[in-house]
């Protein structure tokens, strides 16, 4: 324990340097503005900052990218409360509970609750992240190849189950993502596969442009399909700024914040689940706990606090499988892993073994980030509200430009930009017809690792009998299947409840 505190204090000292503070502050502020701006989410925000991040030190790259996701969660809440439009699906319930508060003149109070809940959720998330990630990585590094196969399969399959209601489309999306990971030189035999004699594909499809296409460019085409019928907010919302929360509100949000933080963190750890699922679970949990409350769906501060704290603790929870196991906790984490990979650092169990100082610097940065969220969140409420009234058309056009810049500036190849556009079109059409894109992106990133762990694992165990008879491997594969089926059923149930909750809104 004393070693942990010593390492942690060194990490905090490293994260307190001028450069680290600059990137933490920049990322938090950018994240808040990105979350408040219509049409842009944290994934796109991280994608456009990627060409900057790959040129920084690994610690500063992590600080910049992670603080964008943290800030964006709060930025989402601003527009959800004051404008009534969720910046992302995760903020839907913030609209349900926060916007009615604004409509009855309590917008300032709702914003303060959102800020306090976000900061407390983030703080709890960071503390648990620090407590869990190193022990988890130390366990994972001892796992052998068959168990590694089981963990990766668990991550991919669970992610698919949690975001789709059609099992066959989920399976097809995973299979397509794994197929996209195959082009290039086979790691074991050195044979070229699916390169068709093209030198560009010799080292495989470029990860970052493909991910930017699948996750970010797709939104551009989706916006085009919606056309001018997309929402256009004309008036800046009026609200009375409330500088602090009264004591009775602090007491009222204590239990919801605890419930929301716990739910958000546990769900956030599950790969692919992310903040959206965490906020829904937290909302249902607090409703069950506080059954006597009658203002659900009409401006419940308990509901608002639970949802916002779950969102923020969930974004930190996503970091745990990403850094400890090398399995992205959410699509945005794929970009973080890609940024580290360009610097020769691979997220996963080996990170704690080979670069422990990086992990502890990240711990320190996240702790300082909590303070920055409190200060910058407070200060950026007004500019963020102004930005939320900018036309989505302008923000989308800007996003397109930034994504193209991001794809091009990595390797200075126009072909990378064509890849982004092509995969963006593919992702748009597939998502239009119900195929989930996030698991496809995860499968693409993890496909090579999955294949290598399977083939090398079979070499190690001398065949399938030895491979599948390993208890942990078998257990992980069975749990993966159960998580897939259970995730689809939970997804269908939550969609039904979300429709019911939306209908309750004034």
């Amino acid at each position, binding site marked *: 324990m004393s070693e942990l505190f010593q390492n942690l204090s060194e990490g905090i000292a490293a994260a307190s340097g001028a450069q680290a503070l600059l990137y933490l502050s920049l990322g938090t502020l950018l994240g808040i503005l990105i979350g408040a701006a219509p049409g842009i989410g944290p994934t796109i925000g991280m994608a456009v900052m990627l060409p900057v991040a790959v040129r920084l030190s690994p610690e500063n790259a992590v600080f910049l990218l992670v603080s964008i996701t943290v800030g964006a969660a709060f930025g989402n809440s601003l527009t959800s409360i004051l404008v009534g439009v969720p910046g992302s699906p995760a903020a839907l319930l913030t609209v349900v509970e926060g916007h009615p508060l604004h409509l009855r003149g309590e917008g300032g109070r709702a914003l303060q609750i959102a800020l306090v809940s976000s900061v407390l959720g983030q703080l709890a998330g960071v503390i648990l992240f620090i407590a869990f990630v190193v022990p988890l990585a130390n366990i994972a590094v001892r796992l052998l190849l068959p168990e590694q196969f089981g963990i990766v399969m668990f991550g991919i399959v669970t992610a698919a189950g949690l975001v789709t209601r059609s099992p066959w489309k989920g399976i097809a999306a995973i299979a397509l993502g794994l*197929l996209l990971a195959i082009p290039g030189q086979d790691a074991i035999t050195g044979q070229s596969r699916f390169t068709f004699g093209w030198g560009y594909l010799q080292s495989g499809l470029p990860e970052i442009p493909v991910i930017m296409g699948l996750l970010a460019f797709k939104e551009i085409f989706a916006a085009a399909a919606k056309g001018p019928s997309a929402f256009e907010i004309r008036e800046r919302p009026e609200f009375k700024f409330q500088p602090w929360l009264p004591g009775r509100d602090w007491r009222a949000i204590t239990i919801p914040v605890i419930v929301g933080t716990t739910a958000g963190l546990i769900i956030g750890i599950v790969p692919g689940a992310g903040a959206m699922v965490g906020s829904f679970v937290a909302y249902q949990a607090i409703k069950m706990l506080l059954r006597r409350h009658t203002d659900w769906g009409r401006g419940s501060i308990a509901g608002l606090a639970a949802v916002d704290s779950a969102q923020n603790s969930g974004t930190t929870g996503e970091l745990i499988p990403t850094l400890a196991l090398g399995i992205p906790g959410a699509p945005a984490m794929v970009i973080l892993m890609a940024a580290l990979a360009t610097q020769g650092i691979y997220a996963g169990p080996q990170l704690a073994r080979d670069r422990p100082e990086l992990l502890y610097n990240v711990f320190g940065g996240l702790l300082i980030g909590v303070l920055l969220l409190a200060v910058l969140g407070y200060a950026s409420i007004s500019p963020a509200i102004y930005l939320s009234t900018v036309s989505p058309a302008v923000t989308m056009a800007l996003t397109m430009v930034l994504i193209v810049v991001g794809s091009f500036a990595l390797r200075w190849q126009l072909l990378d930009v064509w890849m982004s556009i092509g995969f963006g079109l593919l992702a748009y059409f597939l998502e239009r017809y119900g195929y989930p894109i996030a698991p496809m992106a995860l499968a693409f990133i993890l496909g090579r690792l999955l294949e290598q762990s399977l083939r090398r694992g079979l070499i190690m165990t001398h065949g399938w009998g030895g491979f599948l008879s390993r208890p942990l491997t078998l257990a992980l594969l069975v749990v993966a299947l159960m998580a897939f089926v259970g995730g689809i059923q939970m997804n269908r149930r939550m969609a039904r409840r979300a429709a019911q909750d*939306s209908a309750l809104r004034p």
Partner: protein
Amino acid sequence: MPLAKRSPQRLNGPPFGHPDYPGPDVRTGEAVWTFILILISVGSIVTVSSLSVLTAHDPLGPRFFPLVISLILMGAALVILLKPILAMALGHPTPLPRKPESSPPLAGVDWQLVKPKPFPERPLVRVAFMGAVCSAYVVLMDVVGYIPATVLGMAGVLLILDSQRTRRLIIAPAASAISIYLLFTNVLHVRLP
């Protein structure tokens, strides 16, 4: 025709998911794209069969994984394609696939009675147009440089997303192109064309 009285939240047209929202036949599109996935899997199986056979030290070889994945993709796509047909043949028609919603429908929100004419009018044509604009932007970036290409690219995107406001087609792109160029080259030290 005068505009309807505005409420605090105003839309330019029927939101996505509204019954009046124009949309193509979703089932046809789903079938087309599922068939494309089947073609991809068939192509993959044909390509992978040319790889070398198993070696003693590597029981699976480089062929096994792509082959299995392609078969799984083909199987899943066939189920998706044939399920509605089988259901109709058995007298149990399946509901239409759900349209993807990127934002929830807003209850009780007033929207303008006058619908602005989008350019182009059909959604899929707009998507194709957007693809053309993005492609042209990439080509122009190499030919005329970053700032002129960005001005034209943003203007093209704004024309598709918000055809009503012609002022935006000039002011916003020009300001953004110059700001982004200065930010990335001078502040963030990222080279641009």
